[in-house]
């Protein structure tokens, strides 16, 4: 096996090793510090952790593809909120209410369509104007959030459908509905990125855009598909989460983009594009959720949790840089 492959395994395995360390640390530290009687690695606790990872996790999986492309999408939190409003509000429309429970799939459809359309707007602007995705989605983040507030002012949008709640709270083979969506999304995207032409092109474009153009790859439309995909996934994330909660605050989903990016980066995907792995992002999502839960378990408050996650993110990137240093030729800054 070439050194390159070995390096890849170390890189992709790193996040899982980190998760193992976290589990060990919180189990042991929990024995001394925990306020609760339960062990940290309690089975139900772990199942809950996966369920709680789902909303940001589904978005982070999509963000991986965007970042492999060398782009970024800051508007996912706002798309998440707007899709959630569409989901809940559409069920209160008179014709929808007349449909009974058949309104549910239709409402889902509306929400997902919202996500795809908003993503397409991002993608189209990036493609046609050539403006950097960071700037485009920074603008649309503000714009889409504006739409959220225009919809219902500062008021939450609420609608509780008990059939929907039952579905969202169901467990199949022990796993919650949300967890199934997270794992299913991961599987599909993993296949997309490793086995299909689209996935191959995504890597090529992120790694060397000029070479991709020279090889006859249509870069603009490719970007557009990926922005539509992440829009869809942000909406899917909203569908999964709000089916259960039934109420959207206009501030919901804020900072989701940054948590998603954190998970992706923690999973080893390069910020500059060209390299990344869906499975490692799944690891990154779980690692963050473990940290939150684990620090809570040993009695830390939310502020401390954020501080620790921030420090770990920087430490991980520093380590990554050390491992990937190309000799002494690198420019000093």
């Amino acid at each position: 096996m070439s050194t390159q492959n070995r390096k890849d395994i170390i890189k992709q395995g790193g996040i899982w090793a980190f998760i193992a360390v976290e589990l060990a640390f919180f189990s042991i530290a929990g024995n001394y510090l925990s306020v609760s009687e339960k062990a940290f690695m309690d089975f139900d606790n772990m199942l809950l952790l996966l369920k709680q990872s789902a909303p940001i996790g589904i978005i982070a999986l999509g963000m991986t593809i965007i970042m492999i492309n060398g782009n970024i999408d800051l508007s996912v939190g706002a798309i998440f909120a707007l899709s959630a409003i569409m989901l809940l509000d559409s069920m209160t429309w008179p014709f929808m209410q007349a449909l009974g429970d058949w309104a549910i799939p239709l409402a889902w459809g509306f929400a997902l369509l919202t996500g795809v359309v908003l993503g397409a707007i991002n993608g189209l602007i990036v493609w046609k104007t050539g403006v950097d995705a960071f700037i485009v989605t920074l603008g649309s983040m503000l714009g889409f959030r504006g739409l959220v507030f225009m919809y219902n002012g500062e008021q939450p949008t609420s609608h509780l459908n008990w059939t929907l709640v039952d579905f969202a709270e169901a467990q199949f083979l022990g796993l919650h509905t949300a967890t199934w969506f997270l794992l299913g999304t991961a599987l599909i995207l993993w296949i997309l990125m490793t086995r299909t032409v689209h996935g191959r092109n995504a890597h090529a474009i992120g790694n060397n855009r000029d070479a991709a153009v020279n090889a006859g790859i249509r870069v603009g439309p490719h970007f557009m598909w990926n922005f539509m995909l992440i829009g869809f996934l942000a909406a899917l994330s909203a569908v999964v989460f709000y089916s259960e909660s039934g109420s959207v605050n206009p501030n919901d989903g804020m900072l989701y983009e940054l948590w998603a990016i954190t998970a992706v980066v923690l999973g080893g995907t390069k910020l500059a594009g060209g390299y990344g792995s869906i499975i490692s992002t799944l690891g990154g999502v779980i690692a963050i959720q473990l940290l939150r839960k684990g620090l809570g378990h040993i009695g830390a408050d939310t502020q401390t949790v954020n501080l620790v996650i921030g420090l770990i993110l920087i430490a991980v990137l520093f380590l990554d840089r050390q491992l990937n240093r190309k000799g002494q030729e690198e420019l000093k800054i």
Partner: protein
Amino acid sequence: MTEQTPILRLEGIVKTFPGVRALDGVSFDVRPGEVHALMGENGAGKSTLMKVLGGIHAPNEGQIFIAEEPTIMTSPIQAKAKGVVFIHQELSLAGELSVAENIFLGELPRKSFGRVDWAKLYTDTDKILKTLNVSFNARTRVGDLSIANQQMVEIGRALTVDPRAVIFDEPTASLTDAEKVVLFDVIADLQARGVGIIYISHRMEEIFKITDRISVLRDGQYRGTLNTAETNEDAVTQLMIGRSLDLSRNESSHDMGDVALEVRGLSCGSLFNDVSFAVRKGEVLGFYGLVGAGRTEIAETIFGLRTPSAGQILLNGQEVRITSPIDAIRLGISLVPEDRKDQGLVLGMNCRDNMTLPQIGDLTTGPFVSNGAEVAIFDQYRDKLDIRTPGWRQTVGNLSGGNQQKIVIGKWLSMRPEVLIVDEPTRGIDVGSKSEIHNLIRELAAQGYAVIVISSEMPEVLHVSDRIVAMFSGAVMRTFTAEEVTEDNLVQAISGITPQKVA
């Protein structure tokens, strides 16, 4: 300082890189008040020599003397402190800053608490600008200046110290004739002040106009120094190309087919104008000219990366419309680009994925890329082109330049193109692999491909081509057949010396 003490002297400089002896015992000296030309083909070692002089590369052997004092150069800053300054071909200016800030970048005069002494900065700058005799002032934003004036700013930078030796690297590459006159005045002025000047250029005309002596490098070796007054262009060319080309002329002959690609009156803005040529199946058509003559731009236009402003492209006698590389690839035109690493390869991907990149869309079973089909293509072209790699999983960035180039060529051959355009086929490739690539190009022609080779290396162009198009400043000067061409008439054609002859 007497006239006899060289201001700068190099003795037996050797610099090796893994697999390449870039400089092999280079010795020459520069006297005060002298303009000393340094000439050589691309890849002869001029830039490496300058990097050694500037302290960017440490020489493996040899010694640098400044005013006969042995000196070890460690960085361009230290070189400047010793009075050796560089004017680079590529300008490195901060466009948003003023002329004064650029000239004193990194060494702004200061007052207490780190505040900039603006008054001193502007007076000092004005003093320098006065010696340069320019029309702009110290407060002008550099981004607003013409290229020629930006070059003056770059020269101004050199004058913040009292320079002993100034090195000009292709200073006239982007200047108009009128602007050149101004530059030559500045050089004459420096000369009068007793500064030694190294002048790197390809342009014979200038060299004979302003220099006192000419030193020539070839393949990293010092080939001698001539007094400009006592020599002529032919002698210098002879020294540059040297040996009566042991890269023998292309003599292999095979039957040629019909015209595959024809270009009529193709123009693209100011890049090139009214270019016409045709290449037949089984023929290698060489393009030779100086950097900036428009050769690469022609290739990019044919490949759909640029939009032509006029002209026609015909493939097998049919006019075609090419608006993007996708069109070109579909029509069977392939481009092996000039910059392998930036334009040709996805360095972070493995060998197989790079080779199949343009055609994976056709290598699918259902929605999935077929691993077997991909590996089959890779294996076929690895064997055909003799690509040396441990396996298809190897990341392309880890291969040698020669093998990387073969991956790019294999990528296009596997698409079965009709026309293969190869831009600088052996740039940055070691000598052994060079001849392999050359043989490969000849072989491809023998197999019936129409091949266009763009090169800045004369031996290469002479070696592989059946006919050679000589370009100067965006125009075709002359098309030579293998029988007509000599080094002399080729050099003359690409320097724009001879008026256009019968094509």
